[in-house]
């Protein structure tokens, strides 16, 4: 839950959207208007916040809020 909240906060800040706009299935590109550059920047912010490295091939799999939360959970529990 802590991770989920932190990710939500970062997404809100990076994409300039309200927390209420973000559901588990929300897609950054389709629902929040992010373009490919915005996604790259979001990933940079996540890397920094969670002190992890997200390789490009993993970035491609992160299209929804749920994808990111699941991914970060798996990365940080290792």
């Amino acid at each position, binding site marked *: 839950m802590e991770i989920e909240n932190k990710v939500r906060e970062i997404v809100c800040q*990076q*994409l*300039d959207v309200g927390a209420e706009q973000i559901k588990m299935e929300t897609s950054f590109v389709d629902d929040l208007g992010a373009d490919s*550059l*915005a996604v*790259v*920047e979001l990933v*940079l912010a996540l*890397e*920094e916040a969670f002190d992890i*490295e997200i390789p490009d091939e993993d970035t491609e799999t992160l299209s929804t809020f749920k994808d990111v939360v699941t991914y970060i959970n798996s990365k940080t529990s290792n």
Partner: protein
Amino acid sequence: MTANRRVVITGMGSISPLGLDVKSLWDGLLSGRSGIGLITRFDTTDFATKIAGEVKDFDPEKWINKREVRQMDRFIHFAVAAADEALKNADLTIGDDIAEKVGTLVGVGLGGLETIENTKMVLEEKGPRRISPYFIPGIISNLAPGQISIRYNAKGPSITTTTACSSASHALGDALNWIRSGIVDVMIAGGAESTISPLGIGGFNALKALSTRNDSPETASRPFDRDRDGFIMSEGAGILILEELEFAKKRGARIYAELTGYGATADANHITSPAPDGAGAIRCMQMAVRSAGINVEDIQYINAHGTSTPINDPLETLAIKGAFGDHAKKLAVSSTKSATGHLLGATGAIEAIATVKAIECQIAPPTLNLDNPEEGCDLDYVPKTPREMKIDNAISNSLGFGGTNATITISKFKD
């Protein structure tokens, strides 16, 4: 047919050290207000120059949404804000029916210097993986016209001129030619700059080009005065809406003035110093007047480059005498940089706006701080107070590093 296409100015917008619109710029010039003060944007402790013409109270989120504000350097914020005012002032909305006939041409001298400096720090501290994907599109000069084209649906040519202090004058002159050629009917043209940063001030300090009159910012820009000691770096943007006359008439646009001529030459002499005989500037002014189809005797007002550097002001005076002969003594010549400072790549656009207002109001704006004219500087520089006078035709000079010169001619519109 296309050779006769006339180009009129129908809208203007500006962000300058004198304020966030054209009204504050022109009111500031007429009231003799200086836009120069101590630098607040960074710590100037180790810098010889501690003064500049900063744009104050500018909130880019008034024009650009928060998320996108972070994606561009300050010079692009200025360009978008000035374009917004200019388009509203011209009452021009660019629908799909005319979009391909509307171009954008914005001069930028250096691009996003401050963002480059900050990103270099990210690189050093956190490594290359942390560089923002918005770094490059945020700093490259042509994203000034690019962002304007994207936001306002202008689908004609989108171009930047990068010719140092002449960038915006070249932009306006080249824009004139794009419309004259028949390829477009409208150009959103001008200049934008934001280089009040450690590298910007430090770099021009290394050239000994900036004033160090830190104890008296408001009197530091003193063109043609014997106690001048360099230019004052300023920031901002100026945008003008240029339209082919018939196009403007058809939509019932208000016409401020006509852009009638353009001269562009090179000194072919030195990287930073103008040629000592002023020959390049002389040819440039004469070309601009000739291009307007008038004679030098038809000009009443010159908005000079007048930087307040030791080298420019006497040389520009010499060049004006060379270009205008006996008529030079009858001209009113003023440097509005005495109030605004030097906006580098945006300066020609701010000065074009001042020149249009001078023609519209029939008032020559003054040269501030001219207490004791330099030896050889013996023209009528309209010292200290504005002057009501007849102005049918005027030129605005820009003389840039690299020995690149640009002059535009602006005339009272007569149908």
